[in-house]
C-alpha cells in the first residue's frame, strides 16, 4: 500500500504540471491589464513601469516559469520561514505570487479567507455525511417502506434543486419574513463570549443548512444504493442462517461493507463541495475563497485567478488519490500492483 501511495503521488506530479500549464495558458489569453482600473490621471510611462514591475508584458514562457517558481518554490519557503521563524538566505529577493488588484501576496489573502470557507464547507459536509449515512442505510434496509419512498423522493428533490435557489428561498423565509437569521455573513465577528457565539451560529445556519441539504441528498442516495447491493449478497444470508441477531447482521456485516464505496465518495466529493461553496458564498456574502475567485475573475486579476483555480485542481487530484488509497486500505479484495 505504501509503495502504491508513493507511486500515485509521483505520477500525480506530471498531471499537476500539465493542469497548471493548461490553467495558466487559458487564463493568460485574457486581455486583462493590471493597470486597467487605476485612475486615468496616471501617465502612460508610469503605467508601463507598473506593468513591467508586475511582469505583465513578459513573454508567455517567462511568465509561466516565473509563476511556477513563485508557487512551488517561493511560497513553500516563505511558509516554512513564517511557521518556524527561521530565515533562509535570499529571502529578501524572493518574489511571491502577487495579486494585480491588491498588490499583495495572493497566498496571504487565501490564508485570510480560508477559515470562513472551511467553517461553512467543513461543518456542512460533516453534518451532511452524519445525516446521510443512517438515512441511506435505514432506507435500504426497509426498502419500499413509507420511510424509503418519502426518503428517496426527498433525496431526489434535494439533489435536483440547485443550491442557489434553496439559498434564496431560505433568505426569503428566514431573513425577510421571519427575521430569524441574518442574510449576510458578518466576517468581522469574533467569537469571545456566549452572545457572539450565538450570533456566529445564527449567521452560519443558512449557508450550512443549504449545503448540508445538498450533501445529504447526494450521499444518502449513494449509501442507499450501496447498502441495497450488500443486503442481497450471499454472506448476509449466511450471517442470518448462522443465527446472528438482525442488529449484528445489518450493523456489523452489511453496513461495514456498504460504507467502503461511501467513504471513497466522501473523499472524492471534497473538491466538489469547495466549488459548490463558490455559489453559496456568493449568495450569503461569505468572504471565503470562492467569493475571492469570483471577485478576481470579474476584476481581471490574472495571478489570483490562476493560483486559486490551480489550488482547486490540486485538491481534485489529491482527493482522487486519497479515495483510491482509502479504497485499497478498506477493501482487502482490492489490490494494487
Amino acid at each position, binding site marked *: 500500500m505504501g509503495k502504491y501511495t508513493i507511486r500515485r503521488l509521483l505520477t500525480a506530479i506530471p498531471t499537476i504540471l500539465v493542469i497548471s500549464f493548461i490553467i495558466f495558458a487559458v487564463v493568460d489569453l*485574457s486581455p486583462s491589464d493590471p493597470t486597467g482600473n487605476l485612475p486615468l490621471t496616471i501617465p502612460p510611462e508610469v503605467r508601463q513601469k507598473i506593468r513591467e514591475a508586475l511582469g505583465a508584458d513578459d513573454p508567455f514562457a517567462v511568465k509561466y516559469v516565473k509563476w511556477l517558481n513563485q508557487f512551488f518554490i517561493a511560497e513553500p519557503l516563505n511558509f516554512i520561514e513564517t511557521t518556524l521563524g527561521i530565515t533562509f538566505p535570499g529571502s529578501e529577493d524572493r518574489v511571491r505570487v502577487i495579486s494585480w488588484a491588491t498588490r499583495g501576496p495572493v497566498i496571504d489573502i487565501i490564508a485570510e479567507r480560508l477559515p470562513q470557507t472551511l467553517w461553512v464547507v467543513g461543518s456542512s459536509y460533516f453534518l451532511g455525511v452524519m445525516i446521510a449515512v443512517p438515512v441511506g442505510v435505514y432506507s435500504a434496509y426497509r426498502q419500499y417502506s413509507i420511510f424509503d419512498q418519502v426518503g428517496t423522493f426527498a433525496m431526489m428533490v434535494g439533489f435536483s434543486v440547485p443550491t*442557489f435557489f434553496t439559498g434564496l428561498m431560505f*433568505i426569503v423565509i428566514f*431573513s425577510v419574513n421571519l427575521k430569524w437569521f441574518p442574510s449576510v455573513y458578518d466576517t468581522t465577528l469574533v467569537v469571545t463570549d456566549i452572545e457572539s457565539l450565538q450570533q456566529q451560529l445564527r449567521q452560519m445556519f443558512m449557508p450550512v443548512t443549504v449545503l448540508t441539504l445538498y450533501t445529504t441528498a447526494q450521499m444518502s442516495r449513494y449509501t442507499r444504493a450501496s447498502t441495497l447491493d450488500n443486503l442481497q449478497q450471499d454472506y448476509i444470508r449466511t450471517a442470518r442462517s448462522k443465527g446472528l441477531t438482525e442488529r449484528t447482521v445489518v450493523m456489523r456485516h452489511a453496513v461495514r461493507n456498504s460504507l467502503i464505496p461511501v467513504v471513497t465518495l466522501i473523499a472524492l466529493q471534497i473538491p466538489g463541495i469547495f466549488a459548490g461553496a463558490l455559489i453559496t458564498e456568493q449568495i450569503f456574502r461569505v468572504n471565503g475563497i470562492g467569493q475571492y475567485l469570483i471577485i478576481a*475573475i470579474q476584476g481581471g486579476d490574472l495571478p489570483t485567478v490562476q493560483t486559486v483555480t490551480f489550488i482547486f*485542481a490540486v485538491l*481534485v487530484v489529491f482527493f*482522487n488519490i486519497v479515495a483510491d488509497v482509502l479504497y485499497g486500505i478498506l477493501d482487502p479484495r482490492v489490490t494494487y500492483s
Partner: protein
Amino acid sequence: MTATVKAKPKNLDPAEFVQARTFAGDAWLQFRKHKLALIAVAVLLIIVLGVLIGPAIWTIDPTYIDIIAAYQISSPEHPWGTDSLGRDTLARALQGGRVSLMIGISAMLVSISIGTIIGLASGYFRRLDNPLMRMTDIFIALPQLPLLLVLMMLFREPLKAAFGVEGGVFILMVSVIGGLQWMPTARLVRGEVLSVKSREFITAATAVGSRDGRILTSHILPNVMSPVIVAATFSIASAIITESALSFLGLGFPPDFPTWGRLLFDGKDYLTITWTLVFWPGMLISMTVLCVNFIGDGLRDALDPRLRK
C-alpha cells in the same frame, strides 16, 4: 408439446397471435411501472409546451416596461408578479425557458457526442486507449466551475463580436459546458465497448471481413446506446443547472436576455420587496431538473434488461 402445435394451426386467427415483443416495447412496459417517471414526463411536457407555445397565449411583451406596475408580487394582470421595471415575470420566464432548455439540450448533444466518440475510439482501438484515457483523467482533474467561469470571462468578448451578443454567449455556453462534461460518458462508453468487443458476434463480423468503421457503427454502437441515453438524460439536467449557475454568478447572458438563471440573478437584489421574482424562475429550474432526473431514473430501469422485475 407436439399435440398443441398440431391442434393450433387449423384456425389461424391473427388476433390470437402473441404480440411480437420488441426491445422498445419492453422498455416502455417497464418505464410505465415507474410512476414518478411517468408523472415527470407529464410535468416536463407541460413545461416544454408552456415555453414553446406559452408566449402565443400569454401575449404580454416580456420587454414591455410599465414602471407604475413595478414590484408586484402577484396580481390579476401579472399572476407571477413584475420586476423593478414592471416587466411581467411570467412572460419573461416563458421566454427565458426557451433559452435554458435549448442550452440544456445543445450542451447535452455536444458532451454526449464527444464522450461517445472518445469512448468508442479508446475502447475499440487499443493504441488510442492509453493516450485518450490519460487525457480524460486530466479533464476530470480540471476544476469544473472555476474553469467554466474563467472561460466565460475570456471568450465572451471575441464571440460576441463574431456572432452577436446572444448568439455569441449561446455558442460559448454550449461549447464550454459540453466540452467540460463529456468525461463520464467517455469512461462509460469505453467500459461498455470493452465488454461488447469480446463477444462472439464481433468476432463473427470481423471474420466476414467487416471494416472497423462498420463494426463500430452497426454492431458496437447500438449495443452501447442504452447507457448513453441514460447518461444523456442526466446530462441535460446538469447542463441546465450549470447554465443557471453561471448566469446566477453574473457570467452568463446579458441582463436583457432573460434565462431562468439570469432572472434569479436579477431578482435576488429585490428579495425584501417581492419574492415571486426569484420563486418562479427557481421553481421552473428545479421542476425541470427534477423531472429530467426522474425520467433518467426510469429510463435506466427500463433500458437495462438485467434490472427488469
